[in-house]
């Protein structure tokens, strides 16, 4: 069996299979589960307003999202892609340019997000910014009288065996970069990162991989401090009433931007545009924040629609914070593998 033939065969089968699956007035959405786009109340409102039916499918990692796009051409109409992966999706010809004139709310997106070089190529828009957030620190309020201000708190002897970080090579390395005062997208001194992370290992209780892990550990008072996502920390506090609060350390934090794209071969582009427009609408966003808890909308009007003391407006909108954070840029496959090798080595040596 020769491989190019097999690939062609795969594609042909996939197109055929998906042609049967998708009908015109359905919008097939690919996103993380429990990440806004699959909220039942939101789907109901969107379906009522536009007559399109939403069909959700989910991924558990960016790599899986890309695989799903590769193996199911034509199946999805909307896909949520972290901006740092937009380049790769475009290079593999998985996504198409978006006609933003069909998306009225696009005009309200804050210019720094809309103009992101990660989402714009040759004057064309390949991703509509949706929400952004931070990977920063979160603390168990029971363990601190006053919240710490430095990332160095993770290395504090007092928290030995009560620290957690995510089991993710890229995030761990970028965190190490912040802790050693480096640019996360241009790490010059890898040895310093390695040394810093090595000294963190004995502090760690366990690695977390999902929001649920974090919340369970805090609920049973097993951890004091750890890396966490801003939206999740907010949700843990407001929705689940856990003693969690977010800390954006003085050294900075990792920021990410999530955007919607339209895959090549989408059957219902009009429906996709309507869906994206709805997802960045202030009305949807306010409801999402109030009912569930969410990251920060890329739509300036949507953020402005929140109450003044809302976390996403007050803390995340603080210009002081904006100065400290570093947005994740695309990472090459070689870098990713190098990070993973480093991370695996650290994890093995700790045994």
């Amino acid at each position, binding site marked *: 069996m020769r*491989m*190019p033939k*097999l*690939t062609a065969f*795969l594609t042909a089968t996939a197109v055929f299979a998906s042609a049967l699956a998708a009908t015109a007035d359905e919008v097939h959405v690919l996103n993380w589960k429990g990440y806004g786009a699959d909220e039942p109340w939101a789907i109901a409102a969107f379906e009522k307003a536009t007559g399109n039916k939403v069909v959700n499918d989910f991924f*558990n*990692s960016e*790599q*899986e999202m*890309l*695989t799903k796009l*590769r*193996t199911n051409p034509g199946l999805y109409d909307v896909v949520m892609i972290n901006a740092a992966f937009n380049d790769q999706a475009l290079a*593999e*010809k998985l996504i198409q340019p978006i006609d933003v004139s069909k998306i009225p709310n696009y005009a309200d997106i804050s210019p720094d997000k809309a103009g992101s070089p990660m989402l714009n190529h040759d004057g064309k828009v390949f991703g509509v910014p949706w929400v952004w957030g931070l990977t920063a620190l979160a603390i168990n309020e029971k363990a601190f009288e006053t919240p710490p201000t430095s990332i160095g708190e993770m290395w504090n002897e007092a928290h030995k065996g009560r620290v957690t970080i995510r*089991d*993710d*090579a890229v995030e761990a390395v970028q965190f190490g970069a912040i802790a050693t005062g480096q640019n996360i997208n241009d790490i010059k001194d890898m040895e310093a990162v390695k040394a810093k992370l090595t000294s963190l*290992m004995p502090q*760690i*209780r*366990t*690695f977390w*991989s999902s929001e649920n892990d974090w919340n*369970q550990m805090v609920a*049973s*008072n*097993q951890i004091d401090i750890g890396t966490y996502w801003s939206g999740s920390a907010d949700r843990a506090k407001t929705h689940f009433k856990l003693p969690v609060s977010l800390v954006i350390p003085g050294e900075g934090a990792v920021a990410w931007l999530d955007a919607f794209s339209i895959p090549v071969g989408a059957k219902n582009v009009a429906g996709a545009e309507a869906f994206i427009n709805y997802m960045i609408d202030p009305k949807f966003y306010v409801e999402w924040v109030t009912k569930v808890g969410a990251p920060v909308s890329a739509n300036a009007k949507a953020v402005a629609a929140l109450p003044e003391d809302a976390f996403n407006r007050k803390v995340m909108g603080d210009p002081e914070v904006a100065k400290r954070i570093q947005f994740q840029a695309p990472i090459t*496959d070689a870098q*990713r*593998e190098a990070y*993973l*090798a480093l991370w*695996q*080595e650290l*994890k*093995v040596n*700790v*045994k």
Partner: protein
Amino acid sequence: MAGQVATGSRRGLRSALPLLLPAYLWLTVAIFLPLSAMVFFSFMTELPLSGKAWSFTLDNYASFFSQPLYLTLLAASLRLGLEVTLWCVVIGYPAAYVLAKVLRGRSREAIFLLVILPFWSNGLVRIFSWAMVLREGGILDTALNAVLPFKINIDLMYSYPAVIIGLVHSYVPYMVLTCYLTLQAIDDSLIEAGRSLGASRLQMLKRVIIPLSMPGLVAGAALIFVPVVGSFMEPRILGGRTGTFYGTIIEDQFVAVFNWPLGAALSFILLAVVLVILALASPVLRRAA
């Protein structure tokens, strides 16, 4: 002895085919052919799915030998498999004996079924429940402190013992049931005869019962050892920072960096090692029987 070919048993593949074919045909379509595709991938530099240029290479296999990390982890995983299997024998074999030789009637049938029932609940939910038992201030800690006169701190969560407990719990029913199957087949009159000839309980166990039930022990050990060596879910959740094993890095190659060729190569090395161990162990065990 049973198990050897009797005179009347017919020879030849042809007469075996009607019974053999359906199962192996099914396995071929759903397992062997897909895995052959994986073998193919394991010799490639890039996955053709990603649209990049690729060529054939042995690098994926070579990297196993060039990086001490993989060997260390494989050794750790083999040790884990061995320990879990041994614990399952120690815990499961006596239970199988009681079930086969002491209990009688309906209660035996009921317990036979009850042993496997917990595994009809979800594996992840079971692991979460273990977390609740093992952690500091968890159920084990609280219960022991309520009974014991002195204060002790039990915090097994995120440790190697937690991984062992979780895995033994998941796999011990295999040992109980396979050993039961061969222990139950031993004729009671044989044991009585031996006893009346003056053999002690221990002698009977060593000379008669264990050798006759060996096929069950071997089957159970294989069904436990083999999957435990490649396990990643239980170690990851229960082991915390000590939970990195060979299965975890295979998972990482597939999920985190999309390097299927390397992940596939690593898993075929695992398969080869496991098969060699089974091949080496089986004559030893048979001689023991």
